[in-house]
C-alpha cells in the first residue's frame, strides 16, 4: 500500500522486553487513513504488546510511534486520540450502558445534550438502542461486546484498536459481529487495528494483514497476496492449511529450472519472479484445495501438472468439503487435499489403495526461510 498523504500511524522499529525475554524484535508498520489492518499471529507472539504500545499503556524500549506525523512515543494514553476495544470488554460495572458510553465524552466536558445525542447515535450504530439503562452484568456476551465498541466509538477516534474483540463469542455470533464491525468501519471511515489469532477472521475482514511470529512481522500485505504468495513456511502454514514440500533445485537456466520434489518427482519450472535467485534445498507450499487425489492407474501427468504417488491414508468429512490425506510412497510425508463432494465421489479407491496427488506446477509457491528467531 502506498501512502500519498502521510500515514495515520507509523511504527518504527519497536522493541520491547519483559524481564530479559525480548517480546518485540523490531516492529515497523504503517496504517493509512480508513484502513483495516489486522495483526495476526499465534498466541504469545506480541500482538497485544504492540497494541498496548500504540495505545500508550506500555513504553517501547526502542523505536517510535508516529501518529499523523506527530511523535507520540512517550505521550500518555489519555492524550492520544486512540480508543481501544478490550478483549474482555472491560466495561465499568458501576455504570449502566449509557454511563459507559458517555464516560469518555464526560471527560471531554461536552454539553450533556451533545453527550446524550452522541451516545444514542453510537448505541444506534451497534444496534443497542433501548438498553441504555442496563448494567453490564445484565448483558449477554455479544451485547457487552457491542457496548465496548460503542464506548470506543463515541469519541469518534480516527484510529480504533481491537484486541481479539470476538475471542469470547461463539462461532455464529462471531461471524455476525465480523460483518457488523466491517460495515461500521466502512461507514465511519475510521482506521482499525485488529488483533486476532483466527486467520479466517483476518482474511474476511482486513484490507491488509500483518502476520506476526515471535515478535517479528513475517509478512504484511493484502489477504489474497498473503494467501497466494506466502513468503515463509510459517505464513503459508498459519494462513489456511498448506502442504510444505521440500525440494531441491538441480539446475537452473535463465528461463526455467529443474527441481526435484520430495526426493522423487522431477519437474521443469518456468522461472517466475523470485525463483531465479533460489538454489540448493528449498521449500514449496501447496494449498490443499489445489490438490486432487485420485486412484493411481498409472496415468501420465498432463503438461503443467505434477503427480505425487502414494497410498490413501485417511479421509475426513468436513461437511462443505472432504479432506483426503495421502501418504507418499517414501512414507515419511503426508499430502493433504481438500476436495468437493463430486471430486471425492469419483475418487475411485479407498483407504490403503494406491493413489496419486495431482496439482498444477504453477500452484507451487516458493518459500524463503523465516529469519532465525533467537
Amino acid at each position: 500500500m502506498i501512502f500519498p498523504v502521510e500515514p495515520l500511524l507509523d511504527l518504527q522499529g519497536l522493541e520491547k522486553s519483559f524481564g530479559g525475554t525480548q517480546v518485540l524484535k523490531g516492529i515497523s508498520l504503517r496504517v493509512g487513513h480508513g484502513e483495516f489492518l489486522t495483526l495476526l499471529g499465534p498466541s504469545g507472539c506480541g500482538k497485544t504488546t504492540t497494541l498496548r504500545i500504540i495505545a500508550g499503556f506500555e513504553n517501547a524500549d526502542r523505536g517510535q510511534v508516529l501518529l499523523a506525523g506527530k511523535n507520540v512515543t512517550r505521550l500518555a494514553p489519555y492524550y492520544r486520540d486512540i480508543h481501544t476495544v478490550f478483549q474482555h470488554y472491560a466495561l465499568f460495572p458501576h455504570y449502566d450502558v449509557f454511563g459507559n458510553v458517555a464516560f469518555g465524552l464526560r471527560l471531554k466536558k461536552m454539553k450533556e445534550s451533545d453527550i446524550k445525542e452522541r451516545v444514542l447515535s453510537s448505541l444506534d450504530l451497534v444496534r443497542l438502542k433501548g438498553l441504555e439503562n442496563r448494567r453490564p452484568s445484565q448483558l449477554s456476551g455479544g451485547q457487552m461486546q457491542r457496548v465496548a465498541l460503542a464506548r470506543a466509538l463515541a469519541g469518534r477516534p480516527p484510529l480504533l484498536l481491537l484486541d481479539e474483540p470476538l475471542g469470547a463469542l461463539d462461532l455464529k455470533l462471531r461471524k455476525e459481529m465480523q460483518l457488523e464491525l466491517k460495515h461500521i468501519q466502512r461507514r465511519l471511515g475510521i482506521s482499525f487495528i485488529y488483533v486476532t489469532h483466527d486467520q479466517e477472521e483476518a482474511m474476511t475482514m482486513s484490507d491488509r494483514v500483518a502476520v506476526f511470529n515471535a515478535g517479528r512481522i513475517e509478512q504484511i500485505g493484502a489477504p489474497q497476496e498473503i494467501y497466494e504468495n506466502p513468503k515463509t513456511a510459517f505464513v503459508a502454514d498459519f494462513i489456511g492449511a498448506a502442504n510444505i514440500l521440500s525440494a531441491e533445485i538441480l539446475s537452473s537456466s535463465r528461463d526455467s529450472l529443474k527441481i526435484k520434489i520430495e526426493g522423487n518427482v522431477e519437474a521443469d519450472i518456468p522461472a517466475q519472479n523470485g525463483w531465479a535467485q533460489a538454489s540448493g534445498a528449498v521449500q514449496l507450499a501447496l494449498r490443499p484445495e489445489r490438490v486432487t487425489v485420485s486412484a493411481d492407474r498409472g496415468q501420465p501427468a498432463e503438461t503443467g501438472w505434477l503427480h505425487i504417488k502414494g497410498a490413501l491414508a485417511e479421509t475426513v468429512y468436513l461437511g462443505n468439503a472432504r479432506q483426503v490425506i495421502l501418504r507418499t510412497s517414501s512414507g515419511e510425508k503426508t499430502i493433504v487435499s481438500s476436495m468437493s463432494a463430486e471430486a471425492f465421489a469419483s475418487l475411485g479407491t479407498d483407504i490403503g489403495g494406491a493413489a496419486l496427488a495431482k496439482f498444477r506446477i504453477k500452484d507451487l509457491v516458493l518459500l524463503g526461510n523465516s529469519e532465525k528467531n533467537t
Partner: protein
Amino acid sequence: MPPGKDALPPGGRWARISRPVRSKAKKFLAWLFSGKSEKASHLLILPASFWLSFFLVIPIVLLLVLSLAQRGPYGTVIWHPTLDNFRRAFTPLYIPIVARTLLYCGAAAVICLLLGYPTAYFLSFYAGEWRDTFLILLMIPFWTSALVSIYSWIIILGRDGLMNSVLTGIGLLHTPLDVLNTPFSVILGLVYFYLPFMILPLYSSLEKIPKQYMEASYDLGAGAFQTFLKVTLPLSLPGVFAGFILTFVPCLGDFLTAEFLGGPRTYLIGNLIENQFLMAQDWPFGAALTAVLLGAMLVGLYYYQKLEAAEIA
C-alpha cells in the same frame, strides 16, 4: 477503499488531538497516581508511613531508649547506659511466665482457628446473599466495651453462673465447676476477643478459591472431606497463617483478659510489662521487656509479610 458518507476527512481532524488543558494540581495528581516514577508511589505511601513513624516509631524508640537507662528511687529514671535490664529480662524467674504466655496465646490462636475456620468456610461458600450481614454481625459484639463482655462472662462462668446451672441442670455435672480465674477462663477470654481477627483473613482467602477446584476434586473421586483436606485447606493456608499471626501477636500483648478472668497463676508477659510500667514503676525494665517482645514479634511479622507477598504473586 471509499470512505462512507459520515466519514471523517482524513488528516483534517488532527487539529484536535484532544489535549484538554489540565490545571497544575490535576497534573500533579495524575503524576502522583500514575506510578510512572518511583517517587510517586513512595509519595502515595508517605502519609501512612509518616503516620506510623510519627505516632508509633518515635514514641516506641523514645521508650526503648529507656531500656538502656536505670531505675532510680521512687521510679525515677537515671540516664546511665547499661544492659542490666536485658540481663534481668532473661533471668530464669521469668521463664515460666514466657512459657505460660506462649502456651496460652498459642492455645488461644489454635482454638480461634478451629472455631473460626468452619465459620469462615460457611461465610465464603454457603452464606449466599446474607454474607455481608454475617460479616458485620461478626464485628458488632465488640462495639460493647470489653469490660462489659468480661462481666457477662463472669456471670456465665461463675460458680452458680449460667454454665454451671445448665450443666448441673441437665445432669452432666453433680458439683459445679470452678472455671473462673483459671487458665480456662483466660484462654476463653482471649479466644472470644480475638476471633474476628482470625475469621476475616480466613474468609478473604477462602472466598478467593474458585469452586471449580473443588468440583475437579469431587470429579476425581474425592469425597467432601478429602476434598477439604487435599484442596480447600491447602489453598487457604495463607489465610490460616495470616489469621494465626493476627490473633497470636495481639494476644502476647494483652493483659486485661488475664487481669480480670485470670487467677494468681495466670500471670502473662503482658501483665508483667504492665506491672513494670504501673505498680513497680520500673520503666527501664518494662521498656527492656517490650524490646524483647517486639524483637520476637518482628520475626513473626517477617513470615506474615512473606506469606502476603506470596499471595500477591
